[in-house]
């Protein structure tokens, strides 16, 4: 079992991934609160944007990690625009068709989009060769652990997003309208809230967050691995579940905890090897534990008898 001091470099790595989980969770929660949709295509949309940016940066099989030079630096904003555009397009064109269906159907619609994008990416960008996007980054040592500016930006961005979105939802008219729609879409509509426009705004906001996340995620993963990036969302759902798809603050801290736990379990070996082997289960274990905790006082009627 590693000594306590040996965990520090792993905590640094975990904080960076936790931050990405947190921002993704925030995007999911805001969209869910407004539209009732858990956007399972979040990762696929981001991955598609990242692949287009890689191509625009001049990536090729002989240059799998292209560097931004001259006009090609526009690839970075392009990534955000593509993510925002794809998300908004789905929100305007497809999501309204499913608006009155139950939440599961709404979310399955986004799963369909994810699979479609995954298929396109697999067809267009051969998965057997390496691809990566790097951001200009510097590194320095903190208490023996290497920290990169990309990791710091990821952490700072996560905190910024949570604070700004929280204030936005509570202090602005649009934010209030979003919360109203989350409570009751029909009543809000009767009261004059422009539900379609507000929902479109929520999709757009979620898309912008998606684009920003996928500016940082490929450099953290060191690759544009389609499967890993597309299903990154699954890990991020853990934090959102702990926050019950409502509390951004709880989502943030739960996501950070998941990232750090996943990371610090890596060096365990010998008798504790199972902890390392199962570290990728962390989001699931945390989510299941949270659901059990949340449901602990729920009354269930079974065969006519109330049971706790």
């Amino acid at each position: 079992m590693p000594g306590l001091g040996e965990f520090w470099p792993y905590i640094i790595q975990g904080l960076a991934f936790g931050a990405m989980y947190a921002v993704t969770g925030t995007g999911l929660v805001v969209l869910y609160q407004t539209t009732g949709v858990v956007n399972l295509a979040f990762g696929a949309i981001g991955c598609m944007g990242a692949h287009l940016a890689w191509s625009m940066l001049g990536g090729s099989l002989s240059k799998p990690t292209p560097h931004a030079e001259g006009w090609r630096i526009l690839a970075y904003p392009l990534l955000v625009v593509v993510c925002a555009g794809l998300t908004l397009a789905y929100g305007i064109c497809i999501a309204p068709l499913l608006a009155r269906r139950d939440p599961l159907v709404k979310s399955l619609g986004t799963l369909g989009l994810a699979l479609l994008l995954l298929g396109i990416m697999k067809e267009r960008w051969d998965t057997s060769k390496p691809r990566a996007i790097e951001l200009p980054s510097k590194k320095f040592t903190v208490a023996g652990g290497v920290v990169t500016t990309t990791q710091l930006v990821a952490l700072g961005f996560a905190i910024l997003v949570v604070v700004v979105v929280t204030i936005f939802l509570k202090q602005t008219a649009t934010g209030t309208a979003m919360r109203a729609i989350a409570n009751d879409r029909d009543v809000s509509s009767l009261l004059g809230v422009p539900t379609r426009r507000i929902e479109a705004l929520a999709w757009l906001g979620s898309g912008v967050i998606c684009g920003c996340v996928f500016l940082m995620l490929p450099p953290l993963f060191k690759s544009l691995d389609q499967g890993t990036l597309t299903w990154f969302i699954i890990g991020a759902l853990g934090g959102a579940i702990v926050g019950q798809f409502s509390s951004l603050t709880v989502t943030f801290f739960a996501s950070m905890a998941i990232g750090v736990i996943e990371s610090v379990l890596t060096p365990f070996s010998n008798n504790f090897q199972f902890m390392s082997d199962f570290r990728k289960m962390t989001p699931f274990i945390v989510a299941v534990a949270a659901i059990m905790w949340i449901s602990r006082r729920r009354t269930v009627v079974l065969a006519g008898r109330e049971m706790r």
Partner: protein
Amino acid sequence: MARRFMAAAAVGAMLLVACGSDNKSSSTTAAPGTAASATTAAATATTAAAAATTAAGTTAASTGDTTAPSDTTASDAGLVGDKSATAGEGCGLNNGQKATGNPIKLGNVTTSIPGIDFTTGPAMMKAYFDCVNDNGGINGRPVQMLEENDNGKPEDAGAAAKKLIETDKVVAMVGGFSILDCPVNADYYTQQGYNVIVAGVPAECFSSPNIAAVNMGPGYSALGAAQIVVEKGAKGKMVTMTGKSPTSDYNDSLAGLYAKSKGLEWEDLQPELPISDPNTIILDAVNKAGDGGAVVLNFTPPEGLKLLKAAEELNLIDKVIWGSSTPLNDNSVAAALGKAWAGKLNVNAELSLLDDPRPEMELYRQVSQKYNPDAPLGSFQQMGFMIGRIIVKTLMDMPAADVDDPVKVNAAIKGIKNFDTHIVCKPWYFGGLPDGNVPNNYDYNVVPDGTDTMTLDKDCFKIAEVEPILTAVRKAEVEQKLNVG
């Protein structure tokens, strides 16, 4: 209510998921394989000059001290060197005429799943077949490649082989790049009388009498990398790494045996594929190896690169001596690694350098450029090309009436020996040996040059005999004159 439902649905989805170069070579590298042969009486002045160049390159590119006794000194007997290629010049008949008539069907089972995608190998074999078909085919008839994906599932691998042999009626099984084909189908191929040429991954590709590989697979290749890192001074502990898969216990086992035989501790790490947390995984590996230890990677380029870039980010490059099995011998890897890794990653190369100037490699590059232009040059592609050369030459040497008879075709495959190609160190043969076949058992060591090319660090060297199969193979090579002309 809806929130609870969504939470439950989300957890369900999570659990479901849980279960669930173009080459820009610019260097003028001497022809590998010529260095050792240069010491023979027949060596030409040109070869001697090439050897001198190679030796100089080796010194310049070496990392670490080389005080450890060398286990990699090549026996120069039988190296291909500059001998003419058995398959001759050009593709097939090389007459520029389109092949016509019923195609001669050849099948293969290949793996293509996230994290393990070997399709670049068969794609290059098909490119060679396309070139053959544009140049007279097999005595006028075209070759057709039928490929089935095993999807990483044993049941799919079994069904694929049956479909190819019983439904599609392929006359030979050649060019499979699979993690499952050999263990699942070796007995079936024996029953059907098929002698199979593969690019092998699991142990069964090297321990089955009726299967022979053009490569030596992750087991022997990681062993070759282990030999080099020990020669370069690795001390204390060797950590080997390979992705979790049905073959993962075998992949690094031979390297482990070698490390132990040299008094090093050995630990094998098997992260899940695709790797999603490269920083923590490589940090763990280097910490376990300790300063001056060795880390030997056994991954495909996309996965290996993640770990190497993470090591660079975490300032871990100079803490250990780095080795890798063949897949990272790819110029796109060298381009991605850049200056930080110049000369510091020892990649075992089962096949010749990508810019080897000898005719067989020149033909490979030409065919790749014309018929497979989107693919970079790389080891898997070399393997596909080499298998294509072997089977086409074998079919062309048969009477035209016999090439549709699987019995005769597979008898001809079994009889292949002393097949000179500049792509491997020694002539290739099928063998059909009772304990298994490892016809490719001499390797190169290459290192990234800091720009965009893998350069020669050590010429053809002998893979260590750490288990009985290779010992038996080498004995049979001499007794049966399988690769000594």
